[in-house]
């Protein structure tokens, strides 16, 4: 369950609309925003892959330019990787017949 703190950069005219849309996304919490179009959010997701998905979704919203990561903690996911409970899917190039 990684936790990430982000600043979403939006067009100031669209900030309120984006905030509403963000509030509807599961795992996303809006903390604050300013008149320049910055929105501070925290994303809590099941896995970092899910977090990547959510960030992609946010970045493709109308009125959003970038989703900048400021802080990320993945301590329990790292533990899972170590215990072998979760294998990050990295496409490596093994010579597996398929």
């Amino acid at each position, binding site marked *: *369950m*990684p*936790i*990430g*703190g*982000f*600043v979403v*950069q939006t*067009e*100031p005219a669209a900030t309120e609309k984006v905030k509403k849309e963000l509030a509807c996304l599961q795992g996303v*919490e809006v*903390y*604050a*925003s*300013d008149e*320049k*179009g*910055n929105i*501070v*959010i*925290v994303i*809590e997701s099941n*896995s*970092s*892959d*899910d*977090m*990547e*998905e959510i*960030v*992609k979704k946010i*970045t493709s919203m109308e009125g959003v*330019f*970038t*989703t*900048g*990561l*400021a*802080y*990320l*903690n*993945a*301590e329990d*996911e*790292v533990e899972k*990787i*170590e215990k*072998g409970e979760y*294998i*990050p*899917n*990295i*496409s*490596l*190039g*093994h*010579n*597996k017949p*398929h």
Partner: protein
Amino acid sequence: MGLSRREFLKRTAALTAASYVGLELPFTLHKEASAADVDKWVRGSCRLCGVGCRLDLGVKNGRGVALRGVPESRTNLGYLCMKGMLFYKVMGHPERLTKPLYREKKDQPFKEISWDEALDIAAKKFAGAVTAYGNDSVAYYGSGQALTEETYIFQKVMRGGLKTNNVEGNPRLCMASAVGGYLTSFGADEPIGSYADIEKAHCFFIIGSNMAEAHPVIFRRLMRRKLDNPDKVKVINVDPRVSPTSRIADMHMQFKPGTDLAILNAMAYVIINEKLYDEKFINDYAVFRMGKEKKQVDFAAYKKFLEDYTPEKAAAICGGNITPEKIRTAAHWFAKSPATMSLWTMGINQRKRGVWANNLIHNLHILTGQLLKPGADSFSLTGQPNACGGVREGGGLCHILPGHRLVKIEKLRNQVEEAWGIPKGRIPPKPGYHTVAMFEAINAGKIKAIWINCTSPAQSLPNADKYRKGMSREDCFIVVTDIFPTKTTELANLVLPTAFHFEKTGVYGCTERRSQLTPKAIDPPKGAKPEVWIVREWALRLAKELNDPVIKQCVAPFIGKEEGYELPKAIWDEYSQKLTKNRDNDLRGATYEVLKSMPDGVQWPAPTEAFAKTGGTVKKFVRGIDPLADKEAKDDKPYQFYGPAHKDRKLWIWLRPYKGPAEAPDAEYPFYLSTGRIIDHWHTTSMTGRIPELMRANPYAYVEVNPADAKRLGIKPGDMVEVESRRGKNVLPAKVYEGPIEGMVFVYWHDMHEDRMINRVTKDAYDPGSKEPEFKICACRIKRVSGPKPLKPYIVT
């Protein structure tokens, strides 16, 4: 009190993000400060692209578990992108290589061997090849992801020890044309300015780069500038593909692939004919040149040359949405803005005429004086984290030695030999094979042993099947150093497991001439070793095998040093103090001590520690800012072009005609195929990619098709489409959208599945100047083969 751990971490995350934009939150964490989120934070750089973002790696129980940006850093101002997450996924990944693997023949299975055995084999094979077939029968192929210390020591052993200049690396595939452009236009490699120009620019000219996706952290800075000054700042995007970058532009110029050289010359035409140029700047600092002989010509000749590129003529060549009016407007915005900054990447570099395309961008800046002043620069963005620092500066290509020295110049070779304490004449005068030539030499049986470090040419070379055939030859011994198995380890005899970023120490030099240190923060998996240790041990064995004390001399200063910090530090000291001394990339002030003390490293030239501690040189060539400009000044003018390549100390405006791509569409192959690179050769695909929902998160490569073409060919979203060129074919799902211009399709490189490895289709034509292949354009045909199909991922199971 009584915050749960998760609530505590969430608040930490929120407070960190809020602090970036100066926002107050209704809570603090003073009371909980003792409940630290990690044991320690170790400051380093991200290794996943050339932006050079600074970050702290959070270490808990000896493992990397968290990341945060460094707000004081002048590269990223604290922001990171999602690629950074690869860190911890890679560090503890169960598939990491941890044992040397060997097989005598490539059709045999690998067996685990000890490091001693592995290094002996590597030494025997290279020594054997040299003895039987000569020094040029061995080669090194490196990476823009390797640390500077690694590239430096590899090339030192190859050139000084094994007496060959067969030293190349994957930056040839993405940067070589930018190098050629800077050298021929400004006389010196690498950008004059910095990211700091972004906040002072009034016009952005983004060409051949989808920076919104490829360099999101820099794009954020650019957007901030635009949002804060919506009326003052103009953004022009020049690209055959509609992208998130083009969507924010004030003007998107969309054209037939490969015709942008005509647009650039047409903009110059407008600048000259409508008198938008800076006459004094040109008179003071520039000359006009043409042809292979670099013949100097006059202004009138240039003006005459441009007559072939009236906006009307160019618009006819370019197609798309290009009109004469658009070209005129773009030229006016570019020339008249108080400060214009151009930014580009592979769309310009990966071209048959990549150097020329670079020259033509530089021309616009020289003509209009949009250079050297705050906010104005001609700025090439780098894809890989250390293509600039390690490979361009550290001697990682076949024709260059460390410190921006050309192999072919005897005086410069002698300087290097002297610094290394090896006999004069030891480094051969002839440059080695460039990348495509190197793999062609393997095909031809001329290379008997090659060391491939931290890259996967079996996937990343254009027309890959042709070169994979050569690499599978039994008479070419292949060593691969990497952290994971790749398409290239499949063709290796010996695979050596290496330490990853933050598991070892070293320097990266990012896009803006900035060197930054990443110290070791955690141990590598047991069995994996840093490359610098591997090379040192290998060289000592080579010296014995070949009974050659000079090889030993190449690593003598490093014998006995502890591998995690002392060894790379000794290598960096030698490189920076001896090899960059009095060169344009003078890094003598950027010692490990200084680099450690800076939030964001040092920009060269930085000849002294005192100057390095100010951050170094923000703008090259400007007196009062660049210490070398003062030291090398030959007159009173404020700008001094002391770069090594232009003896006349001038900027060169080039007469470069429009040339189309090497392979244009025809009746048989009617489409343009363009491709995009993702830097890592072990790219993450998301777990959700296993769900056969084709378009989710782009886990697989897909082919982008324009809706008009899709309609004509009966292709629906998600349909399986065959993309075929004269060299090979792929079958990929279709993404139908207004991305590529009509008549063009686009595919990313990241999928290693045989059906979707687009470099089996691309062409290996290359720029005659830079030798960089034209990944961006070739001809293909496409057809629908079936409806949507669940795809098999290419993964470790």
